[in-house]
């Protein structure tokens, strides 16, 4: 399409009203910048932590609480007792399964130049790595036999391996943690699922832990756990993390590869609950849930309220900026009625007039989009420096860059529609007469 002439006309019109054009571009840029900044943050925070895998991974909820305050149909707690987690793990009814909890370990480095320090740890079982597809720089996870043997084996992050052993291969080396010697069997390549879906109590956007050790071993050594622990009932144990304690504090994930298996597993959980009730351990009727990763994140409302509120606010602001642009474009084009009259009298079709004003709006939109990109980058820079757990994740990718320009162009073309339509409605005869 020949838009050269329209472009030329648009540029002439901008030159005649420099300040006004600049204002329109600035308004669109601010609106786009605000909308894109918030949308980028939202997209990152609401993302699928394990694309391609997450629809086969399910978190198990059971309901071991007292009957007294039971409301039928209410959501059961999303953590398990240690008893239930270990029982489900023993029965191994899913394609893969892992129990887990978060915690800390204190590490005493061999070299005297490094002070003892504490780092985040995950106490879990063998399938964790294969189930979540964690990448390994070298070595691998431990086996179910290690879990049973309470083996002192550990998987550590590459960052921790470098800190402790420099460039040398860490596999087979020994690291002293929690006062015991652990043999390193795997070094995990950088891995950060966002959100930290497998244990939201450890921080919804926490980084993956630096140390992974068998849960059984962690109980042997009484390693420090961390997360939410809820207890109930009239019995109280000396140790709230013991097998018989009425406290929930563990996460339990399973991998189920087909819909049939999911259905079968649901039945299994209900049967398990019924058995526990029959045995007198549970008081409530079976009240189980099996959520896949994205369902779980939705139910738990992981994306911070503020972030969602910010998206609405920014798009509201963009709306005001657009209304502003429509108003100004309209006023501007109505004032140019005489000019339109002349063009129409000289043979320009309505289509060409329409096009002329749409091109003008489009150019403003593109300029606004380009400047809006700068505003977005500034905005994201601001987000990165606000100190949130997810702050470091805020950056623009190519898809968002495209979205940026698409929104800018679509918005300004939409803003240009009404003025352009009004422009081509101009009656040439009337305008020429009033000259």
């Amino acid at each position, binding site marked *: 399409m020949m838009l050269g002439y329209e472009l030329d006309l648009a540029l002439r019109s901008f030159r005649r009203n420099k300040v006004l054009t600049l204002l329109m571009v600035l*308004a669109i840029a601010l609106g786009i910048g*605000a909308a894109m900044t918030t949308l980028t943050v939202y997209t990152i925070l609401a993302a699928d932590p394990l694309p391609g895998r997450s629809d086969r991974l399910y978190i198990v909820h059971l309901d071991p609480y007292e009957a007294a305050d039971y409301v039928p149909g209410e959501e059961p707690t999303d953590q398990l007792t240690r008893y239930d987690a270990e029982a489900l793990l023993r029965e191994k009814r899913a394609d893969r399964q892992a129990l887990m909890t978060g915690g800390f370990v204190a590490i005493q480095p061999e070299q005297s130049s490094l002070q003892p320090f504490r780092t985040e740890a995950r106490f879990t079982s063998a399938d964790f790595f294969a189930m979540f597809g964690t990448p390994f720089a070298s070595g691998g996870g431990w086996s179910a036999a290690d879990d049973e043997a309470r083996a002192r084996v550990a998987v550590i992050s590459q960052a921790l391996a470098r800190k402790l052993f420099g460039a040398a291969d860490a596999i087979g080396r020994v690291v002293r943690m929690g*006062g015991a010697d652990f043999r390193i069997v795997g070094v995990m390549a950088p891995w950060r699922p966002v959100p930290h879906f497998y244990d939201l109590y450890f921080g919804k956007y926490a980084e993956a832990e630096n140390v992974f050790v068998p849960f059984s071993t962690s109980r042997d*050594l009484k390693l420090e756990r961390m997360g939410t622990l809820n207890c109930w009932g009239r019995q109280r144990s000396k140790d709230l993390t013991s097998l018989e304690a009425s406290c929930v504090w563990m996460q339990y994930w399973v991998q189920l590869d087909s819909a049939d298996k999911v259905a079968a597993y649901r039945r299994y959980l209900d049967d398990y609950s019924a058995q526990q009730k029959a045995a007198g351990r549970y008081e409530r009727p079976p009240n189980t849930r099996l959520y896949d990763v994205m369902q779980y994140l939705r139910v738990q409302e992981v994306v911070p*309220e503020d972030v969602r509120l910010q998206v609405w606010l920014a798009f*509201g602001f963009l709306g005001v900026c657009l*209304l*502003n642009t429509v108003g100004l474009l309209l006023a*501007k084009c109505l004032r140019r009625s005489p000019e339109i009259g002349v063009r129409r009298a000289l043979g320009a079709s309505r289509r060409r007039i329409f096009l002329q004003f749409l091109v003008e709006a489009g150019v403003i939109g593109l300029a606004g989009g380009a400047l809006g990109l700068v505003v977005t980058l500034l905005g994201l820079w601001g987000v990165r420096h606000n100190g949130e757990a997810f702050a470091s994740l805020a950056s623009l990718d190519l898809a968002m860059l495209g979205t940026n320009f698409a929104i800018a162009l679509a918005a300004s073309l939409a803003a240009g529609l009404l003025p352009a339509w009004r422009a081509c409605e101009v009656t040439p005869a009337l305008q020429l007469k009033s000259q």
Partner: protein
Amino acid sequence: MEVRPILSTLRRHKTAAALMVLEIAVTCAILCNAVFLIADRIERVTFPSGVAEHELVQIQLGNIASRDDEKARIARDLELLRRVPGVKSVALINQVPFGNLSRGGGVNLTPDQPKSTLNAALWDIDERFFETTGVRLVAGRPFAADEYRDFNDVFATGEMPQVPVVIVTRRAAEKLFPGQDPLGKTVYIWTTPSRIVGVVDELARPNNLVRQPYSVLMPTRLTVGSGYFLLRTEAAQRDAVRIAAVDALMSADRERVVVRQGNLDDVRKTYFRQDAAMAWLLAAVCVALLVVTALGIVGLASFWVQQRTATIGIRRALGATRAQIVRYFQTENFLLTSAGIVLGIAGALAINLVVMAHYELPRLPWIYLPIGAVALWLLGQLAVLGPALRAAALPPAAVMRLR
């Protein structure tokens, strides 16, 4: 001022006028809610802690491996800390205000209540707590010396914990026993009775401040290693005291690591960082909204002035004063803005209803509506002043010649 000619002019510019009304309406709707949100955040950020925040240092240690001699070590550590120069008083507690990690429990009025009356942060305090933190007792008495017991003797027995006496915060007392004297009343935390012997003014819990801003103090001094040492000192000496204290603790025993150290001002700052950032962001959006809307009004009014040059000339030639021309545009703007404000207030209430349904926010107090309205009226009048003055400055003769 005659309104009819203005209305008849506006009727000829329906679309542009409607757009302006709409812009003002959306701005007004967002503005009212945003200002309300800002006020809400400011209230959160300034939540009182109840402790002498500027004079406190916190230190938390972690063991490298689990050990059995905790009680003796804690007694020695406290003694070491009391000897650090500049330290006025030292206490060991299980959590700090705004510290994020908390021990909580349901507080009930009967032993077998299905749903708790409230959830409170449970504070394990020692004999030096009040003197160190500066928490103010407003009714009743502090714990007596013989009421303090070791944490493990209360909570690690395998039996339901028995805490015969507790002190509650004023907020908790009002929630538990509205309009009554809480002193001497009994509450149940672990299905066992506890008598309220005192009420403190305030003690902000480490988290969950919005939903459950309640605290219960228990005379159960910590004998396990995960507590926070709180050191009271002069504000200016906090850093020096912290460094000396950590040094003293670590020199005495290297089989541990420092988990946290800092002053309570920083703890508050970290806890409320997101709220503060959100308040600033909202304020920035408000300013940007007002600027954009003002520019829109200036732009549109300027065009109208240009478009009506002839009309203005005729009016001036027929004897209208400059002041009357200015007032014409001001009245026009007032009418448009008012229409926008009416729509905007309806919009503000609608947005508030939606926000209330999805977020933890109270109903928009009516006071924010006039705030938004006045802001926009002022903004409109200011924005239109420039173009109106320019219109009034047009010399009638020159304008007439244009015809």
